[in-house]
């Protein structure tokens, strides 16, 4: 068992898609709308051509689960300001480089002190190897990434590293899903009937934090893995609930996700971070949907240490990324899509990230419906 190829079998995928179609054939409703919250699901739905297998009366909306896409312009501007401070080395996940700020992007600036790392461990090594420099890690990501960043802060604390900092913009999913349910309901006529919940965010937090969606809003949820068979199986389970009129949180990705999540990773997050309000690009400030450093770890906070002024930001004109992230528009609705905005010249963040809705549509649009 390698846990990859086994879950990519074409014949099984076709069979599962047929089961999904027959499930909907027998129902009275005209159409179904569900949202895959996570960008990795969106990308794999396109990559494996799943849309083409699914019935026409099933509408899949992409959600705000792409950390790069929801990072506000002001954050990129702050990172760019920091990159110009003498003696600073910026360490970041590669996805962040192309994201446009108000005036430029980290990539366009082509500065020698901006380093792409795979892990916070690389950033820590960089800090240890360069005691005369200040290393700033761009702390972007959801609950999946938060414990790895928290662990790096604990490690820096243990080692007494005084030159390691994090520019925090961590976000948490359940809170934004609440705002989405309230927002989509209010602004758009599309009734959102179910959520495919993220695989690896849920690995950390478990299934319980989503229960309010079923309880308060009657919206069924299924935590699905990222492999194509997992996604199809998850959609089948979700539609099953919808057709039967149920609303529960189910775990499809049960080989990894437990209802209680990963308590050790949660404890590491809890030790280092505390909930705070956070700004989501296109959505605005969502109460308690972010993670900021707790008082005893604030000396690692890059924003405080460098006291960066809050920049005056400018959003790209005509860009509809905000609507994409809330699931109220799809890329073809945007006048910039595929014209002024392409992966090589992205205007908005949804075209930048490989997991962004616009990037996925652009790359695979020939195969989509």
């Amino acid at each position, binding site marked *: 068992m390698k*846990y990859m190829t086994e879950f990519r079998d074409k014949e099984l*995928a076709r069979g599962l898609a047929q089961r999904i179609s027959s499930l909907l054939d027998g129902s009275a409703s005209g159409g179904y709308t569900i949202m895959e919250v996570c960008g990795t699901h969106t990308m794999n739905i396109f990559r494996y051509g799943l849309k083409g297998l699914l019935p026409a009366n099933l509408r899949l909306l992409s959600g705000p689960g792409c950390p790069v896409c929801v990072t506000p312009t002001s954050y990129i501007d702050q990172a760019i300001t920091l990159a110009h401070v003498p003696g600073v080395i910026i360490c970041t996940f590669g996805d962040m480089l192309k994201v446009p700020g108000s005036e430029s992007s980290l990539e366009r600036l082509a500065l020698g002190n901006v380093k792409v790392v795979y892990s916070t461990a690389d950033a820590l090594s960089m800090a240890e190897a360069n005691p005369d420099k200040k290393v700033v890690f761009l702390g972007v*990501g*959801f609950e999946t990434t938060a*414990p790895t960043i928290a662990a790096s802060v604990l490690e820096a604390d243990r080692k007494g590293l005084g030159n390691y900092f994090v520019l925090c913009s961590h976000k948490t999913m359940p809170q934004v899903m609440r705002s989405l349910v309230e927002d989509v309901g209010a602004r758009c006529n599309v009734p959102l009937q179910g959520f495919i919940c993220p695989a*690896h965010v849920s690995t950390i937090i478990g299934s319980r934090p989503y229960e309010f969606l079923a309880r308060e809003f009657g919206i069924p949820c299924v935590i699905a893995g990222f492999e194509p068979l997992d996604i199809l199986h998850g959609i089948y389970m979700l539609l099953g609930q919808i057709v039967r009129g149920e609303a529960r949180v189910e775990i499809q990705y*049960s080989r990894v996700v437990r209802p209680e999540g990963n308590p050790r990773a949660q404890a590491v997050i809890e030790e280092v971070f505390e909930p705070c309000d956070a700004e989501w690009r296109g959505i605005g400030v969502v109460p308690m949907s972010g993670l900021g450093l707790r008082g005893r770890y604030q000396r690692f906070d890059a924003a405080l240490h460098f006291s960066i002024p809050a920049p005056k930001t400018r959003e790209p004109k005509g860009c509809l990324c905000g609507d994409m992230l809330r699931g109220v528009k799809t890329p073809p609705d945007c006048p910039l899509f595929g014209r002024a905005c392409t992966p090589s010249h992205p205007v908005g963040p949804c075209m930048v990230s490989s997991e962004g809705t616009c990037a996925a549509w652009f790359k695979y649009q020939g195969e989509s419906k």
Partner: protein
Amino acid sequence: MCLGVPMKVVEVDPAVGELGGLRCKINLSLLDSVSVGDYVIVHAGYAIEKLDEKVARKTLQFMSTLSRGGSRTAPTPGHDRI
């Protein structure tokens, strides 16, 4: 960004994971007990959870039955560990 890959743990101290013949250092500090031979999901250099082989096999079996048209009302496997 939340991508995670299943890797086989081939060494634990220091920890090394393997995927398709490639080996890399991994950090096991977010898990309680990991042994050589375990499979873990690795995200940004950290193992974030162990994979349960028994449950994975049950899921595949279930998908296979469902795909061929059976077990439409059977429960999804894995919930017995809840």
